[in-house]
């Protein structure tokens, strides 16, 4: 059944499918990363180089 299903995709260039998966993945990653709820965490992390202790 799997191979029968796979045959349906023989006419679609692999590159296009790969591109769609790739773009989809990064759109999700973008939405997740820039979700407003996470804002204060990232702000804190960005300040790490300034919390290394006093030399």
């Amino acid at each position: 059944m799997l191979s029968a299903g796979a045959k349906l995709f023989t006419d679609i260039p692999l590159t296009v499918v790969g591109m769609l998966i790739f773009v989809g993945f990064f759109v999700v990653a973008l939405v997740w990363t820039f979700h407003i709820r996470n804002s204060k965490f990232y702000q804190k992390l960005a300040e790490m180089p300034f919390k290394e202790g006093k030399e």
Partner: protein
Amino acid sequence: MSEHNGNLEQVYYDDEIVKKFIMATLVFAGIAFLAGLLAALQMAFHPFNTNLEWLTFGRLRPLHTNAAIFAFAGNAIFAGIYHSTQRLLKTRLFSDTLSNIHFWGWQLIILAAAITLPLGYSQGKEYAELEWPIDIAITLIWVVFAVNFFGTLARRREKHLYVALWFYIATIVTVAVLHIVNALSIPVSLFKSYPVYAGIQDAMVQWWYGHNAVAFFLTTPFLGLMYYYMPKAANRPVYSYRLSIIHFWALVFIYIWAGPHHLLYTSLPEWAQTLGVVFSLMLWAPSWGGMINGLLTLRGAWHLLRTDPVIKFFAAAVTFYGMSTFEGPLLSIKSVSALAHYTDWIIGHVHGGALGWNGFLTFGMIYFLVPRLWKTELYSIKLATTHFWIGFMGIIGYYLSMVTAGITQGLMWRAIDAQGKLVYPDFVETVNQIVPLYWVRAFSGLLFIIGFFLMCYNLYKTIRSAPARSEPQPTEVKNTRWVVAAGHETPHRSLEGMATVFTVLALVAILVGSVIEIYPTLNMHKYVPRDAAIEPLTPLELAGRDLYLREGCYVCHSQQIRPLVAEVLRYGDPSTIAESMYDRPFQWGSKRTGPDLARVGNKYPDLWHFRHMLDPRSVVQQSLMPAYPWMLQKKTDFVGLRKRVTVLKNLGVPYTEEHLANADVMAEKQAAEIGKALVAQGAPEGVENKEIVAMIAYLQSLGQKRKANRTTQVGKAE
């Protein structure tokens, strides 16, 4: 969940190792830059080749590139990584012993490269010229570096891994993979080996390596340094930490695919070329995301550009990064590549990145670090500012001259008149047109070097003014390794707390593209049948080919005719996969300061090559090529040929039992025939056992390996 502050603890950072790497950076920067200047002068005026074999362009250029990449940039990376990692992880480096083994081991590798490359010990693969013992040493020292780095991660006092550390992790893991895979070779002797890959496979692996050496040795570690030192210098956090997450994952995933854009219009399969182009274009997004993130870190601190040389260098470096990463994908578009490839435009592009991005970021980092490490003030801000402007003018002059030269030559190569003939059929015409621009390049390089020496003087005075050495002072840090943040944790933050998982995921990200592109290429024999009509090189031709590698001919001559009208008119039929199927390493080249040689065989008589090698100007009046008089003095190593043929036979080259048993006898016989023909044409007697005859045999074999095309050397000479 509650948050607590963690315990206060004292840490003694190891800054001595950072100082050592900074010093090594400065020493090797000087050597790399001066070698580059000499190479630039050789291109403008051939007598700068000096007729000394170890200083000719073909040997000097690999020395320059290796010194710039692995000695200058490498030491700078190690200095910055060791300095910032300790502070970001709030702990001393894992092992002082490993740090010192790393430092001295790396310097010994550089020394070995500096000795062997001028002597002509070269694998003939760009940016991977070093012979197998040095390759093994690089692997071992890289492992030492990795153990030291990951050991430091393991005993950190900070749970979270700051973005700079992600880039360091990707660098360490990927460079290890790239180096090991590309350097696989079978030794013939202590200083000679043949790669396990041949022809198109070698081309694919080499440019997967070559492109990603730029990506993961000259880009990701420097991005890590940017993410640490720019906020520190500007005293502002990075503009968008969230953007840095996207920047990192997109970059490490996409970059690895782009290697085939170095092989457009070659005999590399179309699908691989297309993948290379598509992923190169996609690189625009993460690269510019990173650049914008870097530049906007200066928001609210732009006034520092007027007064702070560190910020000047950083801002210019990031701008050059943006420029180079815009231009790279542009050059990957096939129609642009058709014009730009093999020309000096690529040299301009590379140096925009190397001098502007790597050079200026390193200079900014050193100006930032030296006063802090030596606990003093910078001797002269004015001198540093002067350095910036002189260096900046040098880069601009270099870049503009090379882009102009590249476009000029590219257009001349392809110019066809109304009758369908080449407007500039004589290749040397197209070279002489750009010689004035070679002078501009050399002068611009000189400006960059003057700026560098101003920095050395400034740093010398700075260090001289430092207080006497005192006992190392501890730094008080909070141990937050096991602290749980208040509220929820984002998934990515949780991931960053798991260094091993993070590293494995980064490894997977770079392996996906690598495997998809390389695996089918390695299995090409399954669907591209071996062309039985292609003969391997004769033993004498093989000896000549090894001389071709030794002299670095591939840095100026390609052996790959693209299926473009002008190229076919100039050089002959496009190159095929089969024609280089036994080439270890492949010699397709990446630059044409001289013409393509893929079909030069039988184009000229033996005597023409004889004279050309000894004095290029005697047959091509305006040639820039160095002379190779030592080839008339040195004897061909006939005896060593049996071993070389045996190794190649074991690698799959179809040599016969007779080849294995009598390689030296066969070579001597062919050499005697060529020697006799040369004498008949007017050459001196007694040259048959000299290297120049082996070189002629090889050059005359190029493009002649299809049985139908083949004519004997004797027949041709007659």
